[in-house]
Structure formats: structure tokens, C-alpha cells
């Protein structure tokens, strides 16, 4: 059988298994393995299965994945997220829709030490949703705001999404993280503007204003956030001060978080053990998917399908902008159908070579991919952040309510995507400044 046919059948088989609800890691790995078997023979396929899991998980630069997960867990379990929310609430909670603003600000700041959109959505559902409901905020908009603000964790470094993209493409994870800073902050500001508009148009979304916190309360709550600010500055300062590499930043951040919690007398065995066990289990899940993804992409490369697709797309002679617009449309549809991590793993092996051949900056494309991920995480029916918010709300908000409130946030993300497409400098400016500095 022709290798292109093998690749096509393996891809079709993988999609069928995916639709049947088989875990993504197994769909990718198994179909990739069968494809490799047909292309290179049984022994060849087995060698890949023997070498890839170990070589992937023993690569030092990928240690950022478990380490950033560990750091995020420590910060969450150690109460740092709650302190951020309290500070944001006291600073801006008295504005109309203030608790929604506080949620966005708190989630954006927590993103600086948490790399997972689902973790952010879960944490802020537990912290801010009960408060918003107590103040008679619209449950749908409150839930939607938490789910959407949680997506900032994908853009603001450190981001698991960027690490996965970096691993799959061998692009610099450090450069990706720097590139995410400005778009992340802009998206958070855009959310704040959107909330201001929403509560003006429909005051019933946030019917009550909180009393303004006293100056002393504001200052004391702000002082409580020193630990997160310090941790963030430690990581960024450490990387750009040359004290450690981006690959070691995860371990540095985890170590820093442990020291901070110990200094604040919060580092109990319970917090520590819950944090490292959860980090180990999430890492196992992510590495399993990455192993499957790499087996599958190896099969595609071996079959020649990737080169065929690149040849075909370059033959169309699309401008980089047209290509990006075309890909945006494809990703918008895909984001509604499959979960975000699977979307990266299924498409990047095909799309990355095409994008690179078209002369698009791979780091810039990585950031656009994150915007697609943000959209995918909040678009039904498989928006992971929507599920996370509903699951963590303990029945306080239903999926139907969130779906009614999510459309303005989805629309805003589409607008942000358009802005990043029209003005790539927004994404590329900071990495260029860092490189030239």
C-alpha cells in the first residue's frame, strides 16, 4: 500500500477512535504505531515504541512541564490565588461589575504562576463564584467570565500550551513565553472593557455595588500579594538576569514557591504532598498524550504525508496572511469539536511545516495557536473551561446558564484574533526587544 494511503487511513482510524471516546493519548499512539508498522515493518514500529517514551521524558528542557505544574499547585494550595482575588476585589470590587473585574484581574495575575487554563477556571470558580452569586450577579455571566478569564493562563507565561507547542516543534519555549506577555495583558484589558460595556448595557448582570474598601484594607490586601509578585519576578528576573535557563525556570519557581510558603509558615506536609502528587498525575497524563502525539507525527513524517501537504499548500501560493486567515477558520471549527490539547497534537504535525514553509514566524504562529486554544476552551460543546467551571461550582451554575453568558467573550476572542492577525508586531515586539537587548 502507498505510504500516503497508510497515513490517510491511520489518520481516519485515529479520528474514529477519538469520536468513540477512546483517550486521546491512546488514539494517537495506537494509530501512529499501526501506521509505522505498515510503513517500516513490525520491528521498526516496536523500536519507536521502545525508544520514544524514554527519550521524550528524559529530556531536560521538558522538565518545565512537571515543575510549573508543581509550582501552580503549591501556589493554589498555599492560598496565593485567594490572596490575589481578595486584593483585586478590594481594589476594584466597588466599581459596577467589580467582582467580574476582580475575577479577570485575579485570574490574569495568577496566570503568571499557573500554566493551566483548567486550573485557573477551577480555582476562581471556587473563590469568586460564591461571592458573585451572593451579590446577585447573573450566574451565567459570572460563570462565563470565570471560564474565559481562566484562558489567560494559556497566554500569560508560564503556559502549558506553549510548552507543548515548543516540545512538538522544537521552538524556543522561552521565546514563546516572552511573546505571550503583551497579547495576554491586552486580552485581560479587553475582558475588562467588555465587562464594563456588558454591565452598562444590562445592569441586571451585576445589580449591586460593593462598598468601597478603606485605604487600609486595600493596602493590607495588596501587601498580601507580595509572594506572587516575588515569585513572578524571581522567575522572569532569573531567566533574563542569566541566573538560570528557561528550562530550569520551572524547578527554580517550584523551589521559590516552597521557600516562600515555608517563610510564611504555610508549608505543611498536606499542602506539599497534595501539590507534588497532583503534579505527578497531571504530568503522567500530559506526557502520555505527548508520547502518542510524537508517535503519530513520526508516522506522518515517515509516510511523506507532511511533505505532500507542504508541497500542496505552497503550490496554492497563499500569502502568509491568507494562510493564517484560512487556518484561523479551520481552528475555529475544530475548537468547537475537539478539546484544546488534542487540537494541538492533531494539527501541529501537519500545520507547523506548512506555516514555516510559508515564511510565517513560528513563534508568532504559536501565539495565534494559543488564541485558538483560548477560543476552543470556551466554545461549546467541548469547551474544557466550561466543563471545569460547571464541575467546580458544585451545582451553583449550570452549563445552560454559562452558554447563555459566554457568547460576548467568544466574540471578543475572535476580535483579539483579528487584531493579532492584522498587527503581528503586537506579538513580535517584546521578543524582538529582548533579542536585541
Amino acid at each position, binding site marked *: 500500500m502507498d505510504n500516503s494511503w497508510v497515513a490517510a487511513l491511520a489518520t481516519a482510524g485515529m479520528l474514529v477512535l477519538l469520536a*468513540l471516546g*477512546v*483517550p486521546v493519548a491512546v488514539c494517537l499512539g*495506537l494509530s501512529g504505531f499501526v501506521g509505522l508498522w505498515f510503513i517500516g515493518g513490525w520491528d521498526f514500529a516496536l523500536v519507536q515504541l521502545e525508544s520514544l517514551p524514554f527519550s521524550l521524558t*528524559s529530556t531536560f528542557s521538558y522538565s518545565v512541564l512537571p515543575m510549573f505544574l508543581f509550582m501552580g499547585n503549591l501556589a493554589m494550595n498555599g492560598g496565593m490565588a485567594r490572596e490575589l482575588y481578595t486584593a483585586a476585589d478590594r481594589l476594584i470590587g466597588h466599581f459596577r461589575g467589580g467582582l467580574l473585574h476582580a475575577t479577570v484581574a485575579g485570574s490574569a495575575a495568577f496566570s503568571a504562576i499557573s500554566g493551566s487554563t483548567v486550573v485557573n477556571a477551577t480555582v476562581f470558580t471556587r473563590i469568586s463564584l460564591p461571592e458573585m452569586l451572593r451579590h446577585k450577579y447573573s450566574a451565567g455571566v459570572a460563570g462565563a467570565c470565570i471560564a474565559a478569564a481562566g484562558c489567560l493562563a494559556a497566554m500569560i507565561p508560564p503556559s502549558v500550551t506553549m510548552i507543548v507547542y515548543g516540545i512538538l516543534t522544537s521552538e524556543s519555549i522561552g521565546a514563546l513565553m516572552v511573546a505571550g506577555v503583551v497579547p495576554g495583558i491586552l486580552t485581560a484589558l479587553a475582558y475588562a472593557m467588555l465587562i464594563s460595556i456588558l454591565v452598562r448595557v444590562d445592569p441586571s448582570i451585576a445589580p449591586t455595588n460593593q462598598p468601597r474598601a478603606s485605604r487600609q484594607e486595600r493596602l493590607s490586601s495588596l501587601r498580601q500579594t507580595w509572594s506572587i509578585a516575588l515569585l513572578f519576578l524571581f522567575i522572569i528576573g532569573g531567566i533574563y538576569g542569566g541566573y538560570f535557563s528557561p528550562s530550569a525556570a520551572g524547578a527554580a519557581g517550584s523551589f521559590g514557591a516552597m521557600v516562600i510558603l515555608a517563610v510564611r509558615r504555610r508549608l505543611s506536609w498536606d499542602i506539599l504532598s497534595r501539590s507534588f*502528587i497532583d503534579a*505527578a498525575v497531571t504530568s503522567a497524563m500530559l506526557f502520555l498524550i505527548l508520547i502518542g502525539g510524537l508517535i503519530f507525527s513520526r508516522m506522518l513524517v515517515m509516510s511523506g504525508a507532511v511533505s505532500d501537504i507542504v508541497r500542496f499548500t505552497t503550490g496554492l501560493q497563499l500569502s502568509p496572511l491568507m494562510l493564517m486567515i484560512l487556518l484561523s477558520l479551520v481552528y475555529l471549527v475544530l475548537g468547537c469539536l475537539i478539546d484544546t490539547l488534542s487540537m494541538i497534537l492533531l494539527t501541529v504535525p501537519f500545520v507547523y511545516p506548512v506555516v514555516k514553509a510559508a515564511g510565517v514566524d513560528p513563534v508568532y504562529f504559536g501565539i495565534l495557536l494559543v488564541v485558538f486554544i483560548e477560543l476552543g476552551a470556551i466554545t461549546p460543546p467541548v469547551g474544557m473551561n466550561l466543563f471545569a467551571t460547571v464541575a467546580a461550582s458544585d451545582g451553583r451554575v449550570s452549563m445552560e446558564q454559562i452558554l447563555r453568558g459566554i457568547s460576548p467573550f467568544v466574540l471578543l476572542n475572535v476580535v483579539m484574533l483579528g487584531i493579532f492577525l492584522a498587527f503581528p508586531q503586537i506579538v513580535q515586539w517584546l521578543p524582538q526587544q529582548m533579542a536585541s537587548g
Partner: protein
Amino acid sequence: MRKLERALELASSIATWIAGAAVLLMALLGGLDILSTVVIGRPLAAAVEGTEVLMVIAAFMGLGLLHKRRAYIAVDLLREHSGRGLRRVLDWLTLLLMGGYFGLIAWRGWNDAFESLAVREFSNGLVQIPLYPSKFCLAIGMSIAVLWCIVELLKGGLFRDATPQPDP
């Protein structure tokens, strides 16, 4: 069957704690490496190699708990709209394919681990660290996941519809 399940629960629990300890050690090693570099101007010997070995342990020894928590990512679109009978079939299929795939990796993992032990494989670097313990951890973690699939198949093939059990 119950005895096997209990043994597997114990194995998953021990393996998960080992994975967690590996995560903790990676953080400590990384932190001490930075301190050593900044304070005495010399990086900690074998910090990189040690991290690489620990990462393998962290990535695979947590598979038992991952399986028990049902923490795999899957697309549930079809499943949500299917009846109980079809969901049961899908659970069977999932366990069968998972068991097969993990079994292949475990099989090759054991093979690789014993080969590594036979040649006393060590990492490259100033301080040489044996690689075979981490290769055995890969095989053990995968084998625990395979055994969970087999036990659940023997118990009737409930996977996604089964209530996730509490952590060991």
C-alpha cells in the same frame, strides 16, 4: 480478584508516592543547582542528569492513580448521546485498546530496562547516574496501568461509567 485489586491499589499508591517524591526532588535539585551557581559560582554536579532520570520516574509512576482518577483526556461528544448499551461497548473497547497500547509500551519497556541493566547503562556527564532504575520505573508504571485495564475488563468492562475510586 479482590486480592489482585487490593494488591494493585497498594502498588498504585506506592508508585504514586514515588512519582510525587521524584517531582519534589526535581524541584529541590533545581533550586540547589541555582543556589550553588549563584553563591559559589559552580553548578551542582549531576543536576541536569539527575533531573532527567527523575522526570522519567515522575512521568510514569503516577499512571496507576491517573487511571483510577479517570483523568485521561477524551472526547465525549458521541458518548454523551448514546444509550447505556452502547456506552458499555465503548467502555470495553476503550479498556481493550488502552490495555493493548500500554501493554506494548510496557513490554518494550521491560525489554529496554533489562538490556540497560545488563550493560550497566549510565548517563553521560561528569557524575554518571545509572539509567536502568528509571527504565524499570517506566515499565512498572505502564504495567500497573495495563493491570488496571485487565482487572476492569474482568470485572465487567466498566470504565467511564464506573465511579472513580478515591485516591489510595
